[in-house]
Every structure is written in structure tokens, then in C-alpha cells.
């Protein structure tokens, strides 16, 4: 009973998020400075690590050089309003960011090359702008982006648990779902001094919250419902 053919499409004419769920991608070009700053912070949180890893692997840079370039990229993106140029009909925001990073680093390397001719040192060789053989960098970028989103959502969950005095919930979630202990529900119940049904309920609560939080994170970095659905499929993996 598989349904893997052409997908049924459900959506309105506008295909936009409700106003209460403003996308950070859209808000990043808001004329309101406060909203724009908050949106760029959210985009930075979701992309700093994957961009850093991508730069480091793509141009085989040292840790410090890659960090400097990543920082420089986000500073330039904010200054020059790179993200304003994103068009959702041209592809995902994730692909757009990766393309921006590549262009940025190539331009940087050209600049560095000119400095080198004037006596300065070059961090990136222009020869290195070709794709290294054997490495699927797009996959690396996507994988790091996914991992980062999971990490952010877990941290969000931890913060929610602390704010609601549910630290025990989080500890059980951490032990059972994140660390893969061999402990059974009964073992965890004995260790934490709670009933087995509490372990079941705490885990169910944390998983439900985690689902909501990771969806929130994905929603922030997508521009409309269609892109959101697509990226949920990428982050959470297609079932069946």
C-alpha cells in the first residue's frame, strides 16, 4: 500500500505562513531593524556550523581560518543584505546560502591573490576553487545543516524543560533517545526513583515537544509552506 507516486498537493493560492508564524527568511529583509536583526540571528544559528564545516572541507582550511571566513561571510551577508536576493521559486534557501558562501569565498580568494602579488600572504589558492575529487560537499553541507538543527532543537527542549521544572523529563530523554543506553524503562524508573509509567509519559512528552521544536526551527528558515514541507522531508527523512 505504498503511495510514492506523484504527490497530492494541498495548498491555497497564496501558499504563505500564517502571520503568527513569520519566517526568518522573509523577516530578514524586513524594513524594521529589530525584526531584521532577530531574523538574521535565527538564520545565523541555523547556518553558522554547516557553513563553517563546508568552508573548512571545501577549501581544506585550518580551524581558525575557516572560523574567520565564516564570520566574515555572515558579516558581509548582513552588511550587503545577501539574503534579500533569495527567491523561493528558484530553489531552497539552504541551496541559496551554500551558493552565496561559494561565491563569497571565491571572491575573497581573488582579493587575497591580488594582495599576495603585492606581498601579502594568501590563505586560499585560486586553484582550490575547483571541487575536490571524491567529496560530495553538497551532502556534507546538508548533513551538517541537519545535525545542527537537531542540536538546536535538543537545546530548545532542554531550555523548555528547565523553564517548566521538568529536568527529570529531559534527563530520561537524553539517556534513552540520545545516548542509547541499554537501560530498559524499568531500569530508568529505578534509577530516577519514579514509576515505569512515568518514564513512558516523560519520554512521550519530550518526543512530542521535540517534534514541535524542530518544526519551529525548520519553519524559521523556510519561506513558505511548500519549502517547509520539502525541508521537513530532508531533515526528518522521507518515510516509506
Amino acid at each position, binding site marked *: *500500500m505504498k503511495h510514492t*507516486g*506523484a504527490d497530492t498537493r494541498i495548498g491555497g493560492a497564496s501558499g504563505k505562513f500564517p502571520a503568527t508564524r513569520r519566517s526568518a527568511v522573509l523577516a530578514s529583509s524586513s524594513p524594521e531593524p529589530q525584526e531584521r536583526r532577530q531574523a538574521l540571528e535565527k538564520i545565523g544559528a541555523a547556518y553558522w556550523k554547516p557553513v563553517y564545516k563546508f568552508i573548512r572541507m571545501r577549501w581544506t582550511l585550518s580551524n581558525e581560518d575557516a572560523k574567520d571566513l565564516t564570520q566574515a561571510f555572515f558579516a558581509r551577508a548582513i552588511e550587503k543584505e545577501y539574503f534579500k536576493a533569495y527567491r523561493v521559486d528558484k530553489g531552497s534557501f539552504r541551496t541559496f546560502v551554500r551558493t552565496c558562501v561559494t561565491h563569497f569565498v571565491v571572491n575573497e580568494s581573488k582579493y587575497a591573490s591580488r594582495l599576495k602579488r603585492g606581498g601579502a600572504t594568501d590563505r586560499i589558492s585560486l586553484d582550490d576553487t575547483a571541487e575536490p575529487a571524491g567529496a560530495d560537499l553538497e551532502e556534507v553541507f546538508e548533513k551538517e545543516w541537519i545535525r545542527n538543527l537537531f542540536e538546536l532543537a535538543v537545546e530548545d527542549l532542554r531550555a523548555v524543560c528547565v523553564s517548566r521544572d521538568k529536568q527529570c523529563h529531559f534527563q530520561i530523554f537524553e539517556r534513552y*533517545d*540520545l545516548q542509547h543506553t541499554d537501560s530498559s524503562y524499568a531500569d530508568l524508573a529505578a534509577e530516577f526513583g519514579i514509576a515505569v509509567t512515568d518514564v513512558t509519559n516523560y519520554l512521550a512528552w519530550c518526543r512530542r515537544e*521535540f517534534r514541535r521544536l524542530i518544526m519551529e526551527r525548520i519553519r524559521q528558515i523556510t519561506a513558505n509552506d511548500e519549502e517547509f514541507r520539502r525541508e521537513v522531508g530532508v531533515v*526528518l527523512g522521507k518515510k516509506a
Partner: protein
Amino acid sequence: MTISDKAINRLRDVVYEPDLSGTRYRITGVAGHGGMGMVFEAEDTTLHRRVALKVIQPAEAFLDQNAFDRLLDEARILARLEHPGIVPVHDAGVLPDGNVFYTMKFVQGERLDVYAAGNSSVSDLLRVFQKLCDAVAFAHAQGIVHRDLKPENIMVGMFGEVLVMDWGVATILNGRREPAGTIVGTPEYMAPEQASGAVHEVDKRTDVFGLGAILQFLLSDKKVPRSLRAVAAKAKAASPAQRYGSAVEVAADIQRHLDGVPVEAYRENVIERSARIIANNRMAFALIAAYLLMRVLVFFLLNR
């Protein structure tokens, strides 16, 4: 904190799997996913039988507060449609996590597109198609339009039974309607009035278009007479007024073709008409030909 690949995979599973604690169902596998819902293979631990359990996809539940109501509407629509050609619903309810679910018969068989890709003959495919028309006509008689008829939503069972699945975007005629501009369906099988979001124009002829598109798909790589292709073309005419008025009329025209009489959708020329009459009366024409041949032989023998 850094999360391992193993932890990511585990979290992916727990995000998708519905919380069935406190219910009589146990997940045994994933059956498939459509536009709105996910279908799991599950065991009904009370009745000891395999069922298909449908819930809303996490992304849809997140985006649309009404998604749960829509799934419940779908279960209620299925409950109204007791017909051998429509998958029967067993149960519906709300899970501990607030997610709505319903269970239905687990259909063993092949999707129509897979079935058609096999070695099925044209007459076999037409038989399946007629059963499909019957099920759709029954739904229309109950005032329900499927709106997403496509080969992927039709199952052909192990005993030749044909079941229409996925009533997730079905609508009740003269009932609650989506606002104008709402577009549901699958582009290749979607009637123009549906694709343009003109919901007030959607009626049973919208499904007739879907039937026409399915018939066209079934015949796409087969050698068939023009009259049969004309049936598909008439069913999926751009204007609803130019289509068959109902699924019953489509099935009736297919039956005319099978009976060897002219179909409504096609005006044959003299040659085609003669070829059809000869094909339908092969035995009589063979006897006449043999008789004439014998007369000719006798004539020559007597006048030698």
C-alpha cells in the same frame, strides 16, 4: 552538544511514529505517505488482525490546525461509503499526543500503476476500470466527490478486487466547502476547474475527468481502436459540459465497446463501421465466405 548519526536516526523515528500507548494498536511497519497523511501497518492486538493506520504527517499537523478535523472528516466519509470497491474504515479516535487516527482494512495487492505495468490485457484493464467506475459512481450517489483519482490511489487486490483509496481530499457536494482558491489534487489527473481553484464548479464531473485520465494512462502503451481512446478523451474534456455526465455513463460507454456496439464518444466512418461489424460477426462472415467460395468452385467444376 554534538548529536550522533544514530541519535538523529532514532529521533527521526520518534518524530514520525504516532504515540499509540493506551490503544489496542501496535506499529509493525510503514505502508506509505500521501499529501496529508501517513499510513502505517499496524496490528490490532484485540482482534489479532493487520490493519492500516492513518495519521496526519507531522509537517501538515504543524502547518494546519484543522488537519486533524480533516482526517476525521475523511474517516467519516469512508464510513458512509460501504461498497466493495471502497476501502472500509474500522475505527477512529484521538491518540494520547492529540493526533487523530483512523484504521482501515489493510489491502494486499498492487497499486493500479504497478498492476498496469505488468502483463495485463486491455480487456482485463477495462474490467478493472469498470469496477473503479462503479465505486466512484456509488460515492457520487452518496454526494461525495473523491477529487484525487489517480492510479496511485487505486489498489487491485489479490483476488481481482478493485479498491479506491485515499479519500483525504474528498468533498461532500452541497456540504462544507473550502474557500475559493484552495487547490487540492494531483496536477496530471486534475480537472481544469479544480486546478484553477474554482471550488464552486467542482462536481461529479471533476471525478469523471480523473477517470478519463486514468483510462488514458491504462491505454497509453496499448494498441486499441480510436473509439476507445475517444472515450478517455471525452471523459477528460477541458469543459465539464463536454464530458460524460457521470461515472455510470463512462462505464456504459466502455461496456458498449466491450459489446462491440458504437460508443457515444466516437463517430465511426464507413470502413471502421464495416470492420467492427465483421469483427463482431466473424463466424457468420466466415460461413458466408465459405459458402460463396464453394459456389464459385462448383460453378467452375460444372463449366469445365
